[in-house]
């Protein structure tokens, strides 16, 4: 990797940086398959599904997928380390309630309440982070616990009531389009900024390389100087903060702060991340695939809704797709092994030939 190589006086490498040419590395990747599938699904829906080509479709698609898109960013990083965060949707619920109560009951200005909600979200993430990274508990157990805990606190604070008194300026902002008449809601701007930040963090920073190393082998990562515990803790705090932001967005876009907001969303986020090619075992995955994964699920959902399918059929299709995408590498593995075995067989044949010659001479 170029960043690791000392600049300037390093001797030129005598071997190729990659085994395969650039286009192969792009086209034959898991991420590209998801992007291709997304484009195929979109083109198909555009031509075959009634009403899909109306300008509302993309607007609703982005607006409904925004929460999942945002939460998928930190979730990708966490799953790449080999951990998981099941509590993000509950954090959304809790921060939604906190935001609603702070601005409605405590009378804080919306901006202050929003900052407070993000801080509360980050604190929720810190609870997960400390328990997972420093106490060393398995993240699936910790976050199942906090999934119930955060939702429970939210329900305890607001019960079955809701808070709906938000200034029109703010609720309109959440629903506004970037350019009037175009199908892009303003939330996409926030998403693009965050996506660029997370892409830089994951794919272009030392911190990000540590994330992948932890996922591949956290002990090896530790011995090469990656601060394993701190990295994990930071990621959980980031997930909490993003969940706080989503809590505010969800509250403003629906106009309602309820304890039940976004219940069950964590599974949709994780499904999209896995569909996007991130390995649940850690160490593998990239953001472009994840973003395409979220949008792919969104496009399929919208197309099937417009086609009049019921939610059960939609869930069957998306579930099947997910299972296929997770099992595909396993199913293809024997094939790949066969191919590489033939290659190494040929290579070792050649090696034996030359060794034989040398011993003769």
């Amino acid at each position, binding site marked *: 990797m170029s960043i690791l190589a000392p600049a300037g006086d390093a001797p030129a490498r005598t071997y190729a940086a990659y085994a395969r040419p650039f286009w192969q590395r*792009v086209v034959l990747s898991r*991420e590209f398959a998801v992007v291709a599938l997304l484009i195929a699904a979109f083109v198909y829906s555009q031509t075959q599904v009634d*009403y899909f*080509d*109306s300008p*509302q479709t993309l607007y*609703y698609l982005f607006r409904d997928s925004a929460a999942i898109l945002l939460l998928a960013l930190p979730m990708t990083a966490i799953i790449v380390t080999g951990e998981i965060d099941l509590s993000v949707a509950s954090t959304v619920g809790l921060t939604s309630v906190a935001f609603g109560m702070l601005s409605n009951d405590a009378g804080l200005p919306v901006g202050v309440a929003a900052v407070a909600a993000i801080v509360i979200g980050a604190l929720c993430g810190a609870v997960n982070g400390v328990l997972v990274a420093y106490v060393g508990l398995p993240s699936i157990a910790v976050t199942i616990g906090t999934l119930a805990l955060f939702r429970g606190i939210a329900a305890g604070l607001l019960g079955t009531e809701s808070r709906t008194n938000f200034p029109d300026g703010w609720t309109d902002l959440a629903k506004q389009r970037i350019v009037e008449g175009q199908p892009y809601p303003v939330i996409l701007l926030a998403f693009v900024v965050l996506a660029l930040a997370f*892409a830089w963090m994951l794919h272009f920073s030392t911190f990000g390389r540590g994330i992948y190393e932890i996922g591949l082998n956290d002990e090896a990562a530790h011995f090469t100087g990656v601060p394993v515990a701190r990295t994990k803790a930071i990621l959980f705090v980031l997930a909490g903060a993003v969940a706080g932001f989503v809590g505010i967005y969800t509250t403003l876009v629906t106009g*309602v702060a309820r304890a039940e907001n976004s219940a*069950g969303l964590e599974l949709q986020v994780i499904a999209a991340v896995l569909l996007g090619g991130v390995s649940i075992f850690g160490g593998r995955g990239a953001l472009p695939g994840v973003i395409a994964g979220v949008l792919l699920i969104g496009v399929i959902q919208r197309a099937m809704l417009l086609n009049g399918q019921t939610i059960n059929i939609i869930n069957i299709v998306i579930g099947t797709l997910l299972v296929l995408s997770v099992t595909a590498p396993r199913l293809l593995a024997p094939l790949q092994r066969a191919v590489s075995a033939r290659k190494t067989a040929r290579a070792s044949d050649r090696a034996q030939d030359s060794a034989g010659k040398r011993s003769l001479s």
Partner: protein
Amino acid sequence: MKFHNRRFARAAAVTLIASLALTACGGDGGSTADGEGDGESLSITFIPKNLGNPYFDTSNAGGEEAIEEFGGSYEQVGPAEGSPDGQVQYINTATQQGRDALVISANDPDALCDAIGEARDAGIPVVTFDADTNPECRDIFVNQADAEGIARVQVELIADQIGGSGEIAFLSAAANATNQNAWIELMEAELAANYPDIEVVDTVYGDDDDQKSFDQTAALLQSHPDLAGIISPTTVGIAAAARYLSTSDSKGEVKLTGLGTPNQMREYVEDGTVEAFALWNPADLGYLAAYAAKALADGEIEGEGDTFEAGRLGEYTVGADNTVLLGDPFEFNADNIGDFDF
């Protein structure tokens, strides 16, 4: 690791942006849906709280019956679980498809308002039934029963069954349940005004929990040996109380009525534990909601004071807050319970 080097990421970013741009171009070229109905074949979409719920299967079958009568097309869509977020998606979709009217049972009084507002802005009338949104959100709410009707019918049933005099008790849901408390208050007022020989000796709370309601019924019978009747204005409570009574010595002696659903109460009506209980008829509710949607779509009604014809149910008038009242609760007894499945 072959994924995170600059060139790959750059290429991936380009691919992604290209795909987004592609989707964008596609979106702009589209035409808007032609939404206006021609009055002959109205397309009406029913959105229940959730699918696979026998109550809504019954009510929406009523809606379908009505729509068939006036020759429209019926569609039922909805979320798997009763969540407002799920319903919003279906409302948006129906708006895009340019349906002629929407009939919704709302999972939340506030959370659907925006989506419903967008539908109404697109010229689609919205009827709520069973569970209302805030009155300013929708066009018309078809109310299954008003509190006075619910209270009066239950008092009439118990008074009839115990012969107009004796001790009765209430088995309610949670102590702070708004609906139940309002009904109990109205029932007490009704009893005090018109049934001087009936005395309310106790009100117990089963918290809409089957086991707790069962135990509370047992305790009620022990502490009030002369109890003549129990009113349980909650479907969980009445079923649990009936289960207790059906195996106790008081079966048939202590009368039980309240609000229940036919499927839960069938065996107790058939074995004589319960003579009659009340609830609205969901099929009629859906039927009326469909006719209200048609009347709105045709421009027959706009708001309070307007009247419309609802098939076999007759003529209805839109009341205060743009509400249409189905009527008094429906009485289920041994003669008619076989006709219902919800």
